């Protein structure tokens, strides 16, 4: 009888822990979404002005060295990437893969949705506009 009570208590605790973990993950995602939603117009504007671009790993980067000194732009890129990193880790946990895979998948998603004029950093570390990347792909 005592063993059964102990087993039930342990099982209950396990369930409580599991549900708490799930809620925490969802809450973290919601918080990240809110922050990214607020930041989104600024990110779009910086992309339109050719200040930041997307990397193949799913993060943003400042394109020109001179712009890397602008504090507001630096802060934008750092906070955006910190949230993306956290998001990729959560999704990787949910889908049983790695944050790197999630980041690369997001890079593909962003590329599909991007305007032709937006900048992307290739694996050779060179910045190219989407239209140029598409043209290169056609040539090959």
């Amino acid at each position, binding site marked *: 009888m005592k063993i059964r009570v102990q087993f039930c208590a342990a099982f209950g605790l396990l369930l409580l822990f599991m549900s708490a973990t799930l809620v925490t993950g969802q809450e973290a995602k919601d918080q990240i979404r809110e922050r990214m939603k607020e930041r*989104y117009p600024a990110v779009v504007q910086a992309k339109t002005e050719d200040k930041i671009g997307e990397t193949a790993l799913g993060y943003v980067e400042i394109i020109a060295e001179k712009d890397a000194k602008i504090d507001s732009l630096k802060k934008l890129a750092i906070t955006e990437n910190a949230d993306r990193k956290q998001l990729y880790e959560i999704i990787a946990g949910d889908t049983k893969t790695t944050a790197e895979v999630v980041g690369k998948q997001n890079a593909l998603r962003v590329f599909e949705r991007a305007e032709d004029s937006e900048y992307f950093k290739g694996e050779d570390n060179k910045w190219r506009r989407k239209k140029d990347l598409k043209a290169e792909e056609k040539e090959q």
Partner: protein
Amino acid sequence: MKKLFAAVAFAGLLLCEACSPTVKVKHQVEPIFITVEVNIRVQKELEDFFDFEKKIENQNQQ
């Protein structure tokens, strides 16, 4: 004599086995399938998460 015949027959059998062509086909469908399935799940999660982008863009267009 019987022993010699048996030895020759056994050696012949080994030779045939050694010379017979074998084709090994590795089953590689499963890992590809798993990768695609994971990528689809990841894409779905990302699409759900970033649905606010479409909403903001639609609001701006209106």
